[in-house]
């Protein structure tokens, strides 16, 4: 750990957005927005530089204030963190540019929601911090930073509906965090360390570890809206302002998933059993079917998109049963591990781009028509080609048709499923795709339909359409570097010790 190259980037990735956020608090609304946008763009550029550095040097670390762990805080940026940080940078930058224009076009009485900017920067700092954290408690703190700033963003409009769903969201977030923290306490109690990598080596199977695994997984499932804890997500995501919805669904929920993936792969290898994997997989499968079905039944655009998030997050959970090795199988011979976990990364990436684009497009439509009932889409193709195209492309990526990023994720997921012999997940993936196609094409059908009884389209700033379309196109472009990206992920030390632990889990696993 200590012999890894040191880099200033991890500290800057957290520090810069925090400083810009605090700085912007001292300015008037226009200044806040301006500084906020500058801060966002700088953070994005910084993240790209950091990403490039990791591709060249491999995993880099930073000791905050020069203190050594366990007293000091160590930030670690490995390939997985780099990919998530890079994703946040690209999606975040595009959403920020959209938000700048979007808030500009709002009522003057709102002042253009100036508090969006510092809150979003805090959120970004929290996300970067989460991806870089190397110990369980830091993860808790960053989760809280993310949770509180996310809820504050969700209630920004100040409308009663947003407040109620925001409170529901906040309570779910607190419950999730506390549950997670309880697990941290148990682990610290039994091992005396919080360092992820060290835990992977010293953690032993036992009732305390199993219970910790249980409450931590539970807490993170609540945070990432995994079935059956998805209830808070659709109202919270659909009641917020368009850029906020995009941030919440594209990035925030991914934070909890990131921790869950790291914990299962790196830390809890010893306590994972076949049954545990199947259980979380079933939760994912139900989420896929139920979420897609719910999306199909909605009549408001933003609710469709929000329910679709529940389903798309379900796919992520379906990766976990594949990561647990049956006894007697070594990690080296388990050729499905790599497609399975890289599938989840691709699913995260494509969902981030596609869903952000979808919510931003929904925002454009609400702006143009004044409401978001799905009839508002009628004749969209005739009036707003770019937005129609953005919805089409983002939808295709969500369905998982080639050559989108979503296809890449589904392809590798199915491959992992077949190679592992757990074929029973395959129908879920396919039925989920079909249901997704159902609601996406329901929207597209309306977009092509001639005008019926509906309000006319008001003109909307072109630039908004451009950013939404760019995000949708990106959800396809991420396929191009796939080969490189997957090798980058697999070649790095990500889960270096984790795979070993999983292996150990295989030996303990009492399936």
């Amino acid at each position, binding site marked *: 750990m200590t012999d890894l190259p040191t880099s200033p980037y991890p500290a800057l990735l957290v520090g810069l957005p925090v400083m810009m956020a605090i700085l912007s608090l001292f300015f008037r609304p226009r200044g806040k927005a301006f500084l906020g946008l500058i801060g966002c763009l700088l953070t994005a550029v910084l993240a790209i530089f950091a990403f490039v550095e990791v591709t060249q040097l491999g995993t880099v670390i930073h000791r905050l204030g020069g203190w050594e762990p366990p007293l000091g805080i160590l930030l670690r940026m490995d390939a997985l963190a780099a990919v998530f940080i890079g994703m946040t940078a690209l999606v975040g930058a595009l959403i920020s540019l959209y938000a700048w224009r979007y808030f500009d076009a709002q009522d003057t009485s709102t002042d253009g929601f100036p508090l969006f900017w510092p809150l979003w920067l805090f959120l970004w700092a929290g996300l970067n911090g989460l991806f870089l954290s190397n110990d369980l408690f830091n993860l808790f703190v960053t989760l809280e930073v993310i949770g509180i700033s996310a809820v504050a963003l969700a209630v920004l409009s100040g409308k009663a509906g947003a407040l109620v769903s925001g*409170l529901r969201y906040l309570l779910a977030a607190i419950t999730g965090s506390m549950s997670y923290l309880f697990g941290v306490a148990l682990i610290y109690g039994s091992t005396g360390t919080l360092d992820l990598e060290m835990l992977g080596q010293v953690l032993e199977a036992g009732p305390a570890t199993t219970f910790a695994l249980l409450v931590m997984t539970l807490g993170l499932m609540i945070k990432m809206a995994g079935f059956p804890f998805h209830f808070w997500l659709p109202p919270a995501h659909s009641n917020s302002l368009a850029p906020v919805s995009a941030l919440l669904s594209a990035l925030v929920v991914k934070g909890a998933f990131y921790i869950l993936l790291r914990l299962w792969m790196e830390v809890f290898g010893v306590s994972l059993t076949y049954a545990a994997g199947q259980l979380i997989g079933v939760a994912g499968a139900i989420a896929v079917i139920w979420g897609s079905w719910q999306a199909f039944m909605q009549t408001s655009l933003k609710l469709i998109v929000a329910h679709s998030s529940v389903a798309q997050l379900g796919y992520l959970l379906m990766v976990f049963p594949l990561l647990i090795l049956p006894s007697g199988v070594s990690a080296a011979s388990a050729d499905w591990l790599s497609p399975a976990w890289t599938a989840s990364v691709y699913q995260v990436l494509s969902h981030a781009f596609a869903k952000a684009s979808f919510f931003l497009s929904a925002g454009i439509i609400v702006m143009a028509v004044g409401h978001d009932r799905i009839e508002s889409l009628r004749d969209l193709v005739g009036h707003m080609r770019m937005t129609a195209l953005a919805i089409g492309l983002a939808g295709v990526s969500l369905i998982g048709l080639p050559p989108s990023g979503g296809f890449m994720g589904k392809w590798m997921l199915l491959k992992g499923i077949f190679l592992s012999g757990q074929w029973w997940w395959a129908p879920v993936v396919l039925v989920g795709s079909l249901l997704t196609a159902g609601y996406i094409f329901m929207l597209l059908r309306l977009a092509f339909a001639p005008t019926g009884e509906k309000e006319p389209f008001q003109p909307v700033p072109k630039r908004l359409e451009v950013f939404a379309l760019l995000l949708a196109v990106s959800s396809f472009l991420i396929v191009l570097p796939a080969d490189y990206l997957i090798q980058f992920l697999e070649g790095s030390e990500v889960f270096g010790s984790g795979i070993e632990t999983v292996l150990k889990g295989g030996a303990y696993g009492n399936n």
Partner: protein
Amino acid sequence: MEIYQIYSMTSAVLFVIGMGGVFMSKHFIKKIIATIIMGGGVFLAFVSFAQRDALSFADPVPHALVITGIVVAVASAAFALALARRIFQLTGEESFTNDK
């Protein structure tokens, strides 16, 4: 039974009570109080684990963690209360209804 074991068990009980409260009550304030009880349970667990390995002195790390945790929990609770108050001002509602 040693004292830290009593603490641990109490913490588990508090945690479960809190979690049950969050899921079962509908009233805003009841839910918020339930999360605070959960938090209390978690912090008690940390403190109870500070006495390990029959050390003559308490492990300082959990205390540092608990202080951070309490700060975060208080902030969250305050935020939740502010939201609840605002909702009451706008709509007069004080608990969740199922249709929202």
